[in-house]
């Protein structure tokens, strides 16, 4: 039994924490939060690229470090802990992972080295409006390699170079790689609940679109991409949840009421114990997700455990982060409700991370559908 980070992975994680402690303190996050003109922290992005993290899981042949997915999970956990204001998820968990899993050799060669080098920011353009996007409601379309339609919102769409876009071609949904710097693309930055991450409306009018993966398989491809991203996002959520518990604990140990630290009152103690329990459930599910994700990259036909493991990891991590974020504000009392205390950075990010890549409710439905299939088989 070896169900934990290895010593090497722990070392990588410790180094990542030190690095982000220096390069991504709350002041850096607030630099993006407070400046409507900025959607991410470019110096941090460059520094992260220099660390090799963008290509951590990209094969050496394509300019990456060729590490496993568990190493990437360790980095994700630390990025979440630091609420890093960079398009790491869009670029690494989604674009790079999608291209590695579903891209042609030419696409891999074109995209992966540039991701690893920090030259390319990615985005996933699915949503066209509020609510669940059902296949029949999909209106973006590709004809003769040209994309038309509007995608809103697109996380990191205002700064991305390449987007993966879901659109109909010949009446069936497919995925397409679109160069956002080319003609036929209009972007508008939008306001959001979490200003430390960029969001945009992308309007396409004849933009060049190159198919990613099999034609007409867009729905399944999206799910496969989200399964992988869900595991990595779960680690970001877990990192954030752990930090919320820490902050709440530190505050509770330093704040006095009625002559005692508030951390000595059962109402606070049990709230923090509840956070701890949720975080540990999330951690254990995330570890299993990491195992399944890694296994899926090592086996010809992926890992059959991944859909269930990814869903469980995502559900547990979303629940843990939301609970920790909102109750950390509560433990901080009036101070927690101010802009100057960092609680709201995590409160906002917990919402951002739950809203991208499918809400927890949709993942619960996916999980139960998978259980039904297994159970029937």
């Amino acid at each position: 039994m070896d169900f934990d980070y290895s010593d090497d992975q722990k070392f990588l994680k410790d180094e990542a924490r030190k690095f982000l402690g220096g390069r991504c303190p709350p002041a850096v996050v607030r630099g993006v939060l407070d400046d409507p003109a900025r959607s991410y922290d470019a110096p941090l992005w460059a520094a992260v690229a220099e660390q090799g993290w963008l290509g951590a899981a990209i094969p050496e042949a394509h300019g990456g470090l060729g590490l496993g997915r568990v190493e990437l999970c360790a980095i994700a956990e630390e990025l979440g802990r630091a609420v890093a204001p960079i398009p790491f998820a869009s670029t690494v968990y989604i674009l790079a992972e999608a291209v590695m899993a579903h891209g042609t050799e030419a696409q891999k060669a074109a995209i992966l080295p540039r991701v690893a080098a920090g030259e390319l920011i990615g985005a996933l353009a699915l949503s066209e409006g509020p609510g669940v996007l059902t296949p029949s409601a999909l209106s973006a379309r590709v004809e003769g390699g040209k994309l038309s339609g509007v995608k809103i919102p697109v996380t990191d769409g205002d700064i991305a170079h390449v987007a993966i876009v879901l659109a109909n071609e010949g009446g069936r949904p497919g995925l397409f790689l679109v160069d956002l710097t080319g003609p036929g693309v209009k972007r508008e930055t939008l306001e959001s609940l979490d200003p430390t991450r960029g969001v945009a409306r992308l309007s396409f009018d004849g933009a060049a679109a190159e198919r990613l993966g099999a034609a007409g398989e867009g729905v399944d491809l999206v799910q496969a991409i989200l399964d992988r991203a869900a595991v990595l996002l779960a680690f970001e959520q877990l990192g954030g949840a752990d930090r919320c518990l820490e902050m709440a604990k530190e505050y509770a140990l330093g704040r006095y009421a009625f002559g005692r630290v508030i951390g000595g009152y059962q109402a606070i103690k049990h709230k923090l114990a509840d956070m701890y329990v949720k975080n540990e459930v999330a951690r254990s599910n995330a570890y299993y997700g990491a195992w399944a994700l890694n296994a899926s990259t090592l086996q010809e036909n992926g890992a059959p455990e991944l859909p269930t493991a990814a869903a469980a990891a995502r559900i547990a991590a979303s629940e843990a982060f939301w609970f920790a974020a909102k109750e950390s504000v509560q433990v901080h009392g009036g101070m927690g409700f101010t802009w100057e205390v960092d609680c709201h950075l995590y409160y906002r990010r917990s919402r951002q991370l739950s809203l991208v890549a499918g809400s927890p409710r949709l993942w619960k439905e996916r999980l139960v559908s998978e259980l039904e299939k297994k159970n029937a088989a």
Partner: protein
Amino acid sequence: MDFNDSPAEAAYREKARAWLVEAAAAHRAEHGEPKANTPEHMAAAKAWQARKAAAGYACITWPAAVGGGGGTPIESVIFGQEEGKAGVAYGYFTIGLGMCVPTVMAFADTDTKKRFVSPAVKGEEIWCQLFSEPAGGSDVAALRTRAVKDGDDWVINGQKVWTTGAHYSDFGILLTRTDPDVPKHKGLTMFWIDMRDPAVECRPIHQMSGGREFNEVYFSDLRVKDSQRLGEVGQGWQVALVTLMNERLAVGGAAGPNYREVMELARALPGEDGPALSNDAFREKLADWFVASQGLKFTRFRTMTALSRGQTPGPESSIGKIISANQLQDLANTAVEMQGEYGILTGPEAVAGAAFQQSLMWAPGLRIAGGTDEILKNIIAERVLGLPGDVRVDKDVAFKDMPTGR
């Protein structure tokens, strides 16, 4: 078991309604519908308050001699309902008339009362309440703002926080520490102060919701006369309890979207299979929210019944904020998640004018303001159920010797 007014109540309601129809029309003709937080809005509010006072509809339960209406609590509630329906209610006077001026009436000398009560009733002067401090929080009496006797004056230094309306208030009641050598509750003294004094500085607090509705208030060598003292030296906590006793009546329910709005949203938004409203899990939540909202509404009716019967309302009214603040957070979060990735948007293209996103960012504050969830449960447990208070280690310790972590 019915919802009808008694004959006397119905008559009062009819009279109030008739007055309101005419008065509101006249008021609107003069002032229009000014935007909130503008000088025009404040002017309109003051004019409306003056109009009410002239007709006996301001401070309805107070004696006519001080400018009140000489009426009953149930009449006050009835008028409030009708005023709400008439659409001309303003919030600027709630804290002053609900909490501060009653304290002045209870503890000030005759001249002071004469000077302040009537102008406050007429809306000419606005009051704020200066109790909370960064070091206080749930433990209000742990405050540190110092008042030091200097001849016939007191010199005050310190800081208050979360003061509603400090920037537009004319006067305030201020709780200070005058003796740090005695236990916490025994070294406090209350004063009224002039908020326009240059030694008083208001700074808005930047909240996590982005807004700046509350203030920090700083005192730098603020001099007040001993005649501004309310109650005896060292009796400030007893005075504050009188103020806080009135708080429950002054704090309203949680504003923001309720089950109805989220139901409309779910009807309009696509879910996996038909509108989001067709999802059974959402429907169960919706049922729970409806039941809780109805529970609060009918609990208020029970409170009104007690007033109507001339009784003191029971403790059942204390359940309101615990339920409504948590429900607002859950409801807003559900509504935002239901929008999917689109739920992140808060700009002009946001769903329902970003009302759910705003509530999501406001709800954490509601769970804290006016008593945290935890303090309110303590209150229910102790005052309603009669369970013992927590072990108190601060009762017999001089304030200056109390551990504070600093």
